């Protein structure tokens, strides 16, 4: 199990759990508001940005 840290959801402000093996540009889900957020900076703090699902997303 990965050790988790937290960052605030840029949409609703709730805490989002960040896994220790987090990758730059990783897409995470906010459990509170269900927004998709992207990790845009990893450093002392993890910075998140909301991402909108576009029509051409998928397989």
């Amino acid at each position, binding site marked *: 199990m990965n050790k988790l840290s937290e960052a605030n959801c840029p949409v609703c402000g709730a805490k989002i759990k960040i896994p220790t*093996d987090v*990758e*730059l*540009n*990783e*897409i995470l889900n906010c459990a509170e508001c269900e927004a998709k957020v*992207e*990790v845009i900076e990893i450093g002392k703090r993890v910075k998140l940005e909301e*991402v909108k699902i*576009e*029509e*051409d*997303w*998928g*397989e």
Partner: protein
Amino acid sequence: MINITLLHTGIRGDEKLLIKAAKFQKVKLEILDLRKLILNPSKPKAFENIDVVLDRCVSNFKGMQAIRFFEEINISVINRFSVASLCENKFATTARLIAKKIPIINAVLVFGEKEAKEAVKVLGGYPVVIKSTHGSWGRLMAKVSDEESLEAIIEHKLILGSPQHHAFYMQKFIEKPGRDIRAFVIDDKTICAIYRSSPHWITNTARGGKATNCRVTKELADLCRKTSKAMGGGVLAMDVFETEEGLKINEVNHTIEFKNSEQPTGVSISGEIIKYCQKVALKK
């Protein structure tokens, strides 16, 4: 050392598994965010260290541009543009597989309401399924049970939709046994498969379908091998329906998602993809 470049527009759980698999196999995997690149055909040397590009773009449109670019500057891409362009277009998939006499759910393409009503008769009557030729994750699909619904759906698409939504891919509706099959096919071989079960007629795991292991039978492996060859090979995921006439292909996907399938199948799909990338790179 081989340089595999994972091209993305956002890292999902699938890409994290690929990164871990490359580390495990001690393969160099470069992570490249397509959104940050300038694709300049006049400067191909900017990418000369790449042996093979693994397209993992969740944005299909951006990914297709990149595949085209990298192939034009003589860098191998998984999957090739010819394969991806068939897979991304449901009607192109249908036309190719019917031409190759591979069992597939019957479908037609029309552009207007009158023709759509005629198409229902061609498909054997209601219910039918209307989809966009492009799209994924079970979105913008409608099961149409009567003519009034058909008229309403087409009116909405014609008025509200972009030109892409003014082409109606119409499929015969298939009663499924509460599930369909998702087969993972690499280099024409079915490495594993899952059942996607749901009480809803849309069984995509992106829409809540539950994944359990599906044994790869000879019938499934044969169908998937023939389908893979017909589409041009590579790394593919095939949606297969169990029908009264046997197994039939529904769709073929070219930027496959598998994060929910490694655990139930016990197969490292990510590991197999990385191995295939090495094989393609060494063929250069």
